[in-house]
């Protein structure tokens, strides 16, 4: 009976997920004092303008693999740029040596792991993959 209930719940979730894709949430370590980030703060962090949290700690920015749906959705929603455009952006800045792109993760699981274990890490995941091990500081819609 329990098993049947679980299947039914999953189906409902899948349906919901299919119909209205879950939003992207920006997450930090639970111990990070930052409780909320504005959209501008998220942009400045991810575009390399500002590399520090408000408590002065250097932020460890994490990114999804180039082919992942989250990555594409994140940048498209945040700054209306494609993944390719963002690559070009970073390529342009690469030779100055002043700015570096976020650290690339293997998948969502690795990203979640890194945030859980690193106090200054910051990342983004699909809302459906969220759990209590990380703290949500912003939403990207």
């Amino acid at each position, binding site marked *: 009976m329990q098993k049947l209930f679980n299947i039914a719940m999953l189906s409902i979730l899948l349906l919901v997920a299919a119909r209205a894709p879950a939003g992207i949430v920006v997450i930090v370590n639970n111990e990070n004092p930052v409780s909320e980030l504005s959209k*501008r703060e998220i*942009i400045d962090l991810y*575009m390399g303008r500002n590399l520090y949290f408000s408590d002065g700690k250097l932020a460890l920015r994490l990114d999804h693999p180039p082919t992942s749906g989250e990555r594409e959705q994140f940048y498209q929603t*945040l*700054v209306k740029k494609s993944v390719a455009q963002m690559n070009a*952006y970073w390529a*342009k*800045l690469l030779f*100055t040596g002043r700015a570096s792109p976020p650290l690339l993760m293997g998948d969502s699981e690795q990203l979640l792991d890194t945030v859980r274990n690193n106090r200054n890490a910051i990342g983004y995941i699909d809302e459906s993959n969220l759990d209590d091990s990380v703290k949500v500081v912003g939403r990207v819609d």
Partner: protein
Amino acid sequence: MSINTRSSLAYQAGLSILLGALLLTLCFSFYFYDRTYREQLQTADQQLQQLFDTVENSAAVAAYLDNDEIALEVARGLSRNDIVSAAMVTSLTGMQASSGTELSMTSPGIKSFALESPFISGDTVGSITMLPNHDLIKASAQTAAWRHVFITSIQSLALVALAIFLVHRNLSAPIKRLAGQLHIIPPGSKERLQCPRNHEHDEIGLLIKDTNRLLTATQNTLDGERRLREYAESLERQFRLIFEKASCGIALVNAHGKILMHNPSLEHMLNITSTQIDIKNATFHSFFADPDQVRTLLERAHHANNPVTKDLQLKPTHDETRWLNSLISKVTDEDGEMIVECILYDISERTAREQQTQFEAERDPLTGLYNRRAGFRKIETALQQAKETSSRCAFILVDLDKFKPINDNYGHDAGDVVLKTVAHRLSSHLRQHDIVIRWGGDEFLIIVEQVNHSARIAEKLLKTLQDDIDLGDGQQASIGASIGISLFPDHGDQIEDLIQRADVAMYQVKESGRNHYAFYATAQA
């Protein structure tokens, strides 16, 4: 006939066109320079905009990230363009990178473009400032303008040259040729201007047509005048011929009798050549036997509307009496002075012939005295005159005493000699206007006005008739006469009565012894 090059039509037209073209070129050049400069400025603006568009992304990133390396590279890249003197990239957060000449925000013509955040639209992160190269723009505008001026000038010069050539070929040259043609055409000749080809329907053709019409008119006028002059000359010749060769004498005489003009015939008639009279100083009437009569006649002609005609006797020369028939009429000369025209015919011969005829009709052929018929008419006239003037006259009848024996003894020729001698003696003892008539064979009737002297006249006649008459061949004839006298109006007022009473008195003398005279006595009747 030549025209100075400077005053030729082509030169003047060319000069005008050239000056006009130069002026227009100058105006257009000024306008064009101004416009080109503005266009260049506008083009520079567009180029700056394009440059900005090119570097906008990089500059925006540089400003967003305060990346002065990228900013400097952008600024350098911009200032490397000819039209940019200086370029500067700034961010709102204080980053600044510039290249090129000194640049301040107050430089004239400076251009600023805002840089938008590459990630957040509408969010300005910095700016690009550029100073356009005005010297270059100006220079390029000038170059364009000068090129335009040069091209326009060349074009204008070419057009001017073309215009001069066309004016010369289509206007000057034909007109010059026509002027040359016209110059050598003598007035009144049959020559006409020839219209050059292709000019038949333009203004030159019109000019030629009108000029030819004028030439024709001139020729006609001159021809007409020549014909008129020739006619006038021939008329004058004919008139002069008539005037000079006319058989009649012609003279124009003014109010004072001065001869203003005359023909040769007049000189001949007035016998001027032989008398050595200067006709210029002589008066017309002085040539005539009765100058007063002629003067009166001239005055009459002056006031009469119709010609006056009269036979006038010339002053006798060498015992020759000449008569002129004169036709005198009034004319007015050009100055308005009244003069008379006299036309004279010599009628001396005719007058002489008429007088001869009259003489022969009235006279007794033997004695030359009035014959009985003519004598009777003379008596009638004389008696009429005496009646009118209440004067008297005497009828003297002379009868020769011893004429019949002479006729019988010596023949009729001797008788004729006696009669002629008697007639001569009677005439020579009487006055011109006394009337002597051969009344019968040896009977003579004499009418005299001097009644008081009639007795003395009778005695004189008796005395002259008593002289011997030479009959020729040494023979003398002695005759006498018996004379009877009657007086008018004492013894009657009828011719027949008076003659009859003179006859009575004469017979009384014959009976009482002849060779005497007697008055008619009333008692005898």
